[in-house]
């Protein structure tokens, strides 16, 4: 690859006009900014551009031969769709050089509206495999802002396999969790990180505790801020980054000042220009490095670029955290008032004629599967992530599961992991082929790449999981057009938002109503990093005989469950329980219900399944319905975690 000055784009964040001028003057090749509507930085309204300023900014940038990208990287609700159409129309008129998008609905809209502005996939799309990139390219995506968990080697591979332009965060604030897959702020505060309002629970102090004893693991504790990622800084690895074939080097920080942005742009500008002019003669500039270091907010890490950084990427002491956005709170428990309306069962009578609601249960093992089927599950989900100590389902196990389900005239749907990087994708390609002989009743996928791969490979019905962030009916349309026959609702949507979506959806919608719910998914292994100060390797398999949890300052215990790929999944402190609200959910038109039972014993899976089955059947047989509150108390007593109501405390998710 021969380098030219066009090989690399230095991309700067812009929150205000001052910063725009400063970034251009400092030598940015491109800038990105948000409008007042639909973008990821909505906390600070003064750091976004109104419509008129946007148009001026595009003109200003173009006059200086600088490209300008507008972030439209929010999930949108059905109610916001008309506003989004108007906004896209306006953006198409003012012609920035691209729109950086998250919601799959925008892809659908762009096609419908014949938008001519190129589209870039936001980091919030969590694009991390070649099939996802190909799926997006078919919808006019010309560039992908790659996952921050990808290494440079993986980036090179993706580029070679797809030909896509890759943009990568090279400097600034990072998330510890997979982007677009973090539901902590949205569910607890009703302010979603997928809608520009993250309150950063990853910056709370936590104790690591032994789940079995409740004892804090205090020996060698590096400090309370166990998830507080340092700032990304790729200055020291710039040659590797350029040679990896990443075309756009993105600096984070749309809330930063002109001075701050200008300083960073200048330092990287100098290094990039020196390298491209004379790669073999390039040397690391100690003074520039010192300047970056002197003005840093957090300490620096190269994060995942050169491999999983483990403990070295966490600022455990919290000393350099520039500010906090919230403190831990007690999650809403099952007695908290919800915004779900109370529906008189008389209004449900007409529904008695409808088919029996489907009840799906996700299980971790054969015993739980049997228990779910025995107690009235019509669908069982198996496979995908196996949380230790459970083992992954072997092909023989899957075959047995399908036979068992046939006995109950129920369905077994095989699931696939939420994150599928090249290892998981390679395994999946082989796995999907073997489904031809196993013949499960369906396949559930968790990202757009797996959807595409599945659609090309299998003939059984395909459905999508919550991780596709289904928040509006156009996203459902996109999923349908790409091969899905059923979709799971976002965990962050509230009753009002779900009801509107259900009314307009072209797909059957499934709703998760009970179980252990994941707040975050991390490639960072918390116990290894905290207890041994290591990265993923060498791993001493601390998770084989012990389970861990994170205890926050509100005394809430978040269980850490670890899958076969060593990803850490952080559960909410309270399991979702919507048992008392089934009348309202039926009234909203929800006919597919799911219990996330993979973190329960087979016995508890049976009890919960039976309970939901009985309530749903009572509600749909047209008999007078009363909810017996005592069953809730029994359920709470049996559950490994207290019961809560997720995001349903809120009328709308902001």
């Amino acid at each position, binding site marked *: 690859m021969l380098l030219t000055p066009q090989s690399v784009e230095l991309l700067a964040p812009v929150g*205000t006009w*001052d910063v725009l001028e400063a970034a251009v003057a400092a030598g940015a090749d491109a800038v990105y900014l948000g409008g007042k509507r639909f973008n990821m930085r909505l906390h600070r*309204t*003064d*750091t976004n551009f109104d419509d008129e300023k946007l148009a001026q900014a595009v003109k200003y940038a173009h006059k200086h031969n600088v490209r300008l990208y507008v972030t439209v990287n929010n999930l949108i609700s059905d109610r916001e769709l008309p506003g989004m159409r108007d906004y896209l129309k306006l953006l198409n008129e003012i012609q920035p050089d691209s729109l950086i998008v998250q919601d799959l609905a925008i892809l659908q809209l762009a096609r419908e509206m014949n938008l001519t502005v190129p589209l870039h996939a936001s980091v919030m799309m969590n694009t991390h495999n070649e099939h996802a990139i190909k799926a997006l390219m078919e919808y006019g995506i010309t560039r992908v802002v790659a996952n921050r968990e990808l290494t440079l080697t993986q980036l090179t591979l993706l580029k070679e396999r797809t030909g896509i332009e890759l943009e990568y965060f090279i400097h600034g604030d990072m998330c510890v969790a997979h982007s677009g897959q973090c539901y902590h702020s949205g569910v*607890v*505060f009703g*302010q979603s990180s997928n809608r520009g309002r993250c*309150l950063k629970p990853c910056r709370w*102090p936590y104790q690591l505790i032994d789940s079995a004893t409740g004892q804090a693991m205090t020996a060698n504790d590096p400090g309370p801020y166990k998830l507080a990622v340092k700032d990304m800084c790729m200055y020291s690895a710039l040659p590797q980054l350029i040679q990896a074939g990443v075309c756009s080097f993105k600096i984070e920080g749309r*809330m*930063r*000042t*002109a*001075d*701050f942005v200008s300083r960073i742009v200048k330092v990287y500008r100098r290094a990039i220009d020196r390298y491209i002019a004379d790669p073999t003669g390039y040397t690391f500039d100690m003074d520039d490095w010192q300047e970056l270091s002197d*003005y840093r*907010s957090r300490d620096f890490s190269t994060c995942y670029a050169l491999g999983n950084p483990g403990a070295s990427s966490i600022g455990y002491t919290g000393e350099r955290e*520039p*500010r*906090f*956005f*919230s*403190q*831990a*709170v*007690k999650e*809403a428990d099952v007695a*908290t008032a919800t915004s779900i309306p109370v529906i008189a069962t008389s209004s449900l009578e007409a529904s008695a004629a409808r088919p029996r609601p489907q009840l799906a249960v996700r299980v971790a093992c054969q015993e739980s599967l049997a228990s779910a089927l025995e107690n009235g599950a019509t669908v069982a989900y198996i496979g995908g992530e196996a949380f230790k100590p459970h083992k992954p389902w072997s092909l023989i196990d899957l075959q047995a599961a399908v036979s068992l389900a046939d006995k109950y005239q129920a369905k077994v749907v095989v699931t696939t992991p939420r994150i599928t990087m090249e290892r998981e994708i390679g395994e999946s390609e082989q796995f999907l082929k073997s489904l031809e002989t196993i013949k499960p009743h369906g396949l559930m996928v968790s990202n757009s790449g797996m959807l595409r791969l599945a659609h090309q490979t299998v003939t059984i019905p395909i459905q999508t999981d919550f991780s596709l962030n289904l928040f509006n009916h156009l996203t459902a349309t996109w999923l349908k057009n790409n091969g899905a026959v059923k979709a799971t609702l976002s965990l962050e949507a509230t009753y009002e938002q779900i009801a509107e979506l259900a009314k307009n959806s072209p797909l059957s919608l499934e709703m998760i109503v009970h179980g252990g719910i994941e707040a975050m998914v991390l490639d960072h292994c918390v116990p290894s990093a905290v207890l041994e100060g290591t990265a993923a390797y060498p791993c001493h398999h601390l998770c084989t005989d012990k389970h861990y949890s994170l205890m*926050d*300052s*509100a*005394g809430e215990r978040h269980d850490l469950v670890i899958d076969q790929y060593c990803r850490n999944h952080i559960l909410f402190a309270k399991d979702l329980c919507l048992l008392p609200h089934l009348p309202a959910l039926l009234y909203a038109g929800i006919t597919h219900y799911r219990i996330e039972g993979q973190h329960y014993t087979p016995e508890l899976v049976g009890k919960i399944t039976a309970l939901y089955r009985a309530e749903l059947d009572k509600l749909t047989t047209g008999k007078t319905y009363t909810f017996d509150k005592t069953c809730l108390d029994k359920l709470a007593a049996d559950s490994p975690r207290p019961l809560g109501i997720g995001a349903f405390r809120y009328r709308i998710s902001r």
Partner: protein
Amino acid sequence: MHHIGILQLTQNLDDAVRGFKAGLSESGVSAEFHYVNADGAVNDLPQLAEKLAHQQAALIFACSTPAAQAAVQLPGTIPVVFTPVFDPVGAGLAKSMDKPGGKATGVAGMVPAAAKTAFIQELLPAAKTIGILYHSADSNALLEVNNFKQAAQTAFTLVDLPIAKPEELSSLPDRLIPELDALFLPIGRIIEENFASVAYYAEAANLPLITSHAPNVPSGALGALVSNHYELGRACAAKAAQILAGAQPGNIPVGIVDNPEIQLNSFAAANLGIELPPALLKKAAEVFE
């Protein structure tokens, strides 16, 4: 043409800078501005102040107490105009409000406690017991707490709710006694930036929040009586114009907030089941939905 340095702590206060520039231009002062911003890093301020001194600033406009202190501590005689400093005398920036005596003057940003008390009475006429939630290690917060206690003690039963460190907000419900009718949040960074957690618990307890930090109103506080930073900047410009014309800063009295503005949140009001008084709605500078 005057070289004027602007020493900013955080861009949250940039409205004051805009008002300052507008005010100077209204006064017919032509100026070249040198703007530096510590982006929240208080420790960087002395270094940034020196940078302005090197640029031959004829005057420094300093936003926030630490910025003003950094500018005043520069060797030499560069005059300093500050805002929204809450306690100019306590912070050592002025000997007295009427005659600051040194090389600095400005406009204090604290809304008088009596005005806040009257605002709360008008907003929540039935309220009897008010909790004051503040960070006990924050001197500005302590100052406002004292002022508020003096001004409001006859109007309300006051309940002191100090927190020593931010994590204590996690157990706030344990301290919210049932008698409380509202919470008053004095100024102070710890409460302001962790406001979401305060609002989370206050909503669950159906407690209205009266804040002193304007950005907390759109985030869920019921209301605030706050200074308008743009106007503070304009008032500072008038003082700067006097200084540039030859007046001694030490002889120019420090101004106070004379026209605080009302901000209300009607979404929060609806959630609380409170009807916002029409008279207040009429007077409000901003009503968030």
